[in-house]
């Protein structure tokens, strides 16, 4: 299909002389920038992970020992799954909360939908670090919530709700808060582009609202839902900023471990490189599967 359309359109274009920069001239700078500052650095990480490069100079040779200890040592793997679990929970909750918001904006016929969308998304566009900081102020043992409870007498002085800060709960709450506005966007876009005629057809065929939703709207909005899910999952699974500010020991995540391997008193760049590459691998596979899923969906509707 694609090739015939391509050749049919091409001649009119090709006959014209193409003035200006050549294609390599256009692509040269952006592509080489990404090769130098993106592809090569990742290759260097790979080189560290097999000891081609090492942090402390000395006799060394190519070895998989860092990879071996990653899989056998029993600290990094459980930590990875803990992060995946936290991140999956956050993504799922956030998508479930965002779906009705997007649905309301896209399908309720409200005239101010773009204004409301902006109201929803605006917090996402302000400083990430400062929004996390706000929660640190709110959740602490002597923070806003606890001192409010003390001063209203709802809780006795000296008995704060201490699970609020430096816990898994805190990390998940803050991550959810940070990503919620952004997640509504892909869902809104798919719902907005939904053909209303389909819903009217469903209703003409005596479908109830629930049936129309379950059998028309929801399946058609699935690509947006999956996109939204990944948009949260991918950045949160490697997160280290929020855990370091509100996580404490319980909220320690895989990303925090990577940072510590590079920055703490006893750096171990080789193991850190393995952890980084493993995370990158998992996320690349997920992204590829998702892109395939989108393509398959497009092929089906076309």
């Amino acid at each position, binding site marked *: 299909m694609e090739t015939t359309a391509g050749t049919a359109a091409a001649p009119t274009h090709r006959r*014209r002389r193409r*003035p*200006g920069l050549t294609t390599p001239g*256009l692509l040269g*700078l*952006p*592509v080489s*920038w*990404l090769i130098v*500052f*993106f*592809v090569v*650095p*990742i290759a*260097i*990480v790979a080189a*560290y992970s097999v000891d081609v490069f090492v942090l402390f100079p000395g006799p060394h040779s190519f070895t998989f020992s860092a990879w071996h200890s990653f899989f056998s040592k029993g600290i990094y793997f459980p930590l990875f799954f803990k992060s995946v679990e936290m991140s999956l929970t956050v993504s799922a909750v956030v998508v479930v909360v965002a779906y*009705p*918001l997007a649905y*309301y904006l896209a*399908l*309720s*016929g409200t005239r101010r939908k773009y204004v409301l969308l*902006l*109201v*929803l998304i605006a*917090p996402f*566009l*302000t*400083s*990430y*670090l*400062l*929004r996390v*900081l*706000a*929660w*640190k*102020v*709110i959740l602490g043992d002597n*923070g*806003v919530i606890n*001192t*409010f409870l003390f*001063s209203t007498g709802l809780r006795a002085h000296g008995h704060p709700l201490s699970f609020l800060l430096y816990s898994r709960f805190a990390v998940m709450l803050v991550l959810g808060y940070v990503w919620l506005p952004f997640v509504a966007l892909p869902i809104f876009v798919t719902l907005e582009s939904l053909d209303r005629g389909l819903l009217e057809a469903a209703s003409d065929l005596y479908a109830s*609202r629930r049936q129309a939703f379950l059998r028309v709207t929801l399946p058609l909005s699935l690509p947006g839902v999956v996109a939204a899910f990944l948009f949260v999952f991918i*950045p949160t699974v*490697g997160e*280290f*900023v929020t855990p370091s*500010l509100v996580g404490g020991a319980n909220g320690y995540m895989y*990303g925090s471990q*990577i940072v510590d391997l*590079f920055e703490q008193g006893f750096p171990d760049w080789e193991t*850190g*490189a393995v952890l*980084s590459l493993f995370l*990158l691998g998992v996320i*690349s596979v997920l*992204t590829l599967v998702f892109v395939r899923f989108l393509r398959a969906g497009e092929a089906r509707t076309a």
Partner: protein
Amino acid sequence: MDVALSRNGRRVMRMFFALVVVFLYAPIVILLVFSFNKAAVPAFPLTGFTLRWYHEFLHNGSMRAALETSVIVAAISSVAAVALGILASVALARRGFLGKGLVATLLLSPLVIPFVVLGVALLLLFHILGVSLGLLTVASGHVVITIPYTILVLLPRLEQIDSSLAEAAYDLGAGPFRTFRWVTFPLILPAVLSAWLIAFTTSFDEYPVASFLVGPRLTFPTYLYSALRFPSQLPQVIAVAVIVIMVSLLVIVLAEVLRRRAEARLEGA
């Protein structure tokens, strides 16, 4: 009958929407309230109104220096990212070439890289090259992060405008640069501005990658992070947080208004 929502459903959803908006803005409002609170520890009960923390922020040289550093880094990296993004988008929108899918994948792939991995990778690169860390190392990382954003904004706009306009300019004897300057560029200008704004604010606010790549001159987010270790600095940090958040909200609203106006003008033309 409205097939999407019943009357009750609409009411429930409107309430839910309002609740979520309250949840999203409450922390910001709380920061705002405590930035004017007299006590040095943000806690209830409130102890009285003061402008002291804003005043201290204004006289805090290192905090202002950090703000300045971030403006410089964001200015450099956003201009570079937009320039590279325009080149790449023109190629992707106007040219057919071998391996286009692969190039597009490369250009967009920074979108999905975990920032911690990018930070680590660039740290190792500069370590091996023997480059000492500073403003430019941070900026180079920010360019990588923001190139995909600029392409995502610019490419749809370039695909929207009629390529026969540029061809008409060529037929009338304009060279490629004159054509770009007087035909293509004005048509994509709103998109260029939004791409630049997104790149600038992203860089200005970026912490994870910068935390690996900053040298002795801290950027604003890295400065804030280090200031958080000292409780005595907290009230000032809250004051500056309020200023930064308010300014960015203002910029967002302003940008949206301007974008709409520009779009209306282009559609009218």
